[in-house]
């Protein structure tokens, strides 16, 4: 009897451990995290510009040119060649995963362009590609939020 007890105790322990292990497993319901809408509102300044690959940043004064997004509207301050030349409204093709931004100057049709919105060194940047003059002349402006 004593030996029987000794023999069965590990078996009981194994069964209890197995039950505990089984009960500890729980199926978690995975819910996708919603991507935050991209908020580009604020004042943006040009920190880099190229024309057909040629760097313009050091030969053109971009310091006074500002692009402001606020409540669906954009404004241009101290204009330079840009996608549009008049103030108006803007929209993103997808607020969460935007690939395109559309500018609609007051009284004119909308003009859309691809844009990227990377974080560089912890700072959000906005890069726009466009042709303000001849279609073959490609400009790329990189903006950073102004303080």
């Amino acid at each position: 009897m004593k030996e029987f007890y000794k023999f069965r105790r590990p078996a009981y322990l194994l069964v209890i451990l197995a039950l505990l292990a089984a009960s500890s497993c729980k199926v978690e319901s995975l819910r996708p995290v919603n991507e935050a809408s991209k908020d580009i509102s604020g004042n943006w300044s040009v920190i880099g510009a190229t024309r057909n690959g040629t760097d313009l940043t050091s030969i053109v004064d971009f310091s006074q040119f500002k692009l402001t997004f606020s409540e669906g509207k954009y404004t241009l301050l101290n204009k330079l060649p840009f996608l549009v030349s008049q103030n108006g409204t803007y929209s993103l093709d997808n607020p969460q995963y935007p690939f395109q931004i559309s500018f609609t100057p007051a009284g004119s049709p909308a003009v859309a362009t691809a844009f990227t919105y990377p974080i560089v060194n912890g700072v959000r940047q906005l890069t726009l590609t466009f042709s303000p003059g001849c279609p073959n002349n490609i400009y790329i402006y990189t903006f950073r939020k102004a303080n």
Partner: protein
Amino acid sequence: MRASLRINVKAKWLWSCCAALILGMVITCCSITVFTVTQPDTAVVGSTIPISVKFTYHNIKGGNTENLVFGFLVPKGWAVSQNAKITYTSTVGDGKMVLMPSNVTEPQSNGLSWSSALLKKFGIGTNLVNDMEWVVYQSDVGLPLNDGEEITATLNISLKVGADNNNTLCKLGYLIAESHDGLHEVDSNIDQNGAKYEYYAEQITPCFMLTGGSGEVVDFCNPQLTSVDPPKSLDNDFVTLSFDGTVTKTALPSSSTIYLCATANTSDGKTYTVCDQSAKTQFTQTVAGSNKYKITIWPRSYFGISDSQTIVNMNYYVTDATGNIKVGYGNTASPFTYTFKCN
């Protein structure tokens, strides 16, 4: 474990040798010899000129079927992709050359299209104005290649020149390759004549002159006192004017401070002149003492036109600090002219 490792090392060597051998056999097609271009020296805008390009694929190896590839360096304004017809005759068949699809990549250029790869490797040849393009063609069918074969081919080009109606001086460029090796660099492969394999062949021809156009003269061949970048632009582009004082001796003192004196003509018949000697009009010397200068302007703002106006063209001089010494087109008293247009 040690035995296993030794076997692996041996296998690695064996595989490497085999791979190198197989690679050498596969990537080697042929060597291009005899590359002759026959083209006229001059032509009239709007005419159609004949050009022939003759070449030989020599010492062919492998049993691949490959397309003949032809790159043509031409002024963008000629719209060659729409204005050239090219056929070929060869010892293995005749046919026509068709435009290389833009999604076909050059095999040695890490995913670049053929035209981009040629531009990256050869630039615009020895032309001086960056308004040239490489238009690339391939044979309409692949040509079967047999070991030791020699293929002689001639491209017959029928080119309508001067679609932009500009009198032009330019150096046309030609490239011959094949679709398998592309712009493969010279390696250890030796041709039958003892020379190294030439996987492609390229040449830039002497200056070709196009006359009879009503547009302005576009000179890609000769250094100019002034040049404009981009060569084609509108008044809403940033425009960079360059002055090269080394081209010829002018009345302007060497490596001094120089200024832009310009007049814009708008589509509504008005003129706007900016001819003061100020920071706004001052050229920047690219390198101290170089006697080469640049100024970048946004014409709409520079001349202060209204939103409803458009600048058609611009006449300009380069002046000294007093404004009394003016240098114009060809170092004369006539102004340089620039027309704002895209074609």
